[in-house]
């Protein structure tokens, strides 16, 4: 991310405010890794409170959903024309379990917008970045700025 580009700085600031204002994103200690135009990378630390299978210590699918949904929303908000967004639908494919103890990173891309809808693709990874943990596609409402 360039620090001399005022548009990029503005985008990054808006995205940061977007994440910091979300109580549930704060509760899960989500962090912004990168913001671009229609692009967002967020991460979430491993946390024992999020375990879904006590026998293995694997994090719950729902916690991965929360990260993917937030990341998708952040990608939409980072679009230059966006003012507000909400999820219309989200499909998540769980390709493998996330390795216990590892931070989960999600990358979402808002690949197309219409007058009212933003289409998003997202991927979730742990340390083994060549084998994604989950993939998601979603439609979000797209409220344009004045």
């Amino acid at each position: 991310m360039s620090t001399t580009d005022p548009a990029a700085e503005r985008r990054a600031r808006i995205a940061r405010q977007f994440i910091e204002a979300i109580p549930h994103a704060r509760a899960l200690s989500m962090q912004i890794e990168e913001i671009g135009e229609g692009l967002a990378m967020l991460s979430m630390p491993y946390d024992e409170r999020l375990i879904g299978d006590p026998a293995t210590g694997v994090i719950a699918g729902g916690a991965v959903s929360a990260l993917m949904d937030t990341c998708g929303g952040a990608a939409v908000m980072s679009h230059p024309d966006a003012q507000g967004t909400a999820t219309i639908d989200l499909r998540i494919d769980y390709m493998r379990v996330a390795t216990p103890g590892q931070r989960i990173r999600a990358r979402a891309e808002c690949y197309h917008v219409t007058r009212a809808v933003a289409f998003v693709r997202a991927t979730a990874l742990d340390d083994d970045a060549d084998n994604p943990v989950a993939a998601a596609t979603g439609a979000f409402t797209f409220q344009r700025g004045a």
Partner: protein
Amino acid sequence: MRKPEPVQVIKTRRDAALGQLVGGIPYIQYLGVQFDRRGDELTAILPYREELIGNPMLPALHGGVTAAFLEISAVIELTWSTLWTEIEDGTAPDHPPMPKTIDFTVDYLRSGLPRDAYARARVNRSGRRYASVHVEAWQDNREKLFAQATGHFLMPPPAQDG
């Protein structure tokens, strides 16, 4: 003919089985999801907390919280219905193996209000390997769903004898 078991014995056994299933999963405790049981029918309850908010301006429940609540409801219903016969026999394991989510599609019908939410799941297909579960969530009015979802699950291999 054998005399029917006293109702309290049956209730205690079923509630203990449900408690074992739900109480052992940290994420369910973290979100605060509870289950109301009537016979074999379960209703999941998500008591409202400020931490569950995703849009502070409206305010509205976080889409991820809604997805997680629906997924938990689906997984518990699936495990519960699979175990039902063993629960009734008194042979259910304390820590049953959990199904794994293959995919989960959430349909957000309206924004989740800052108040308690309820969900009920229905197992539409349950085979030895795969299951398909539909789940509906509402807040004040059962007819006005705020979200619904369908998920596919990989069933755990049957427990080995011995």
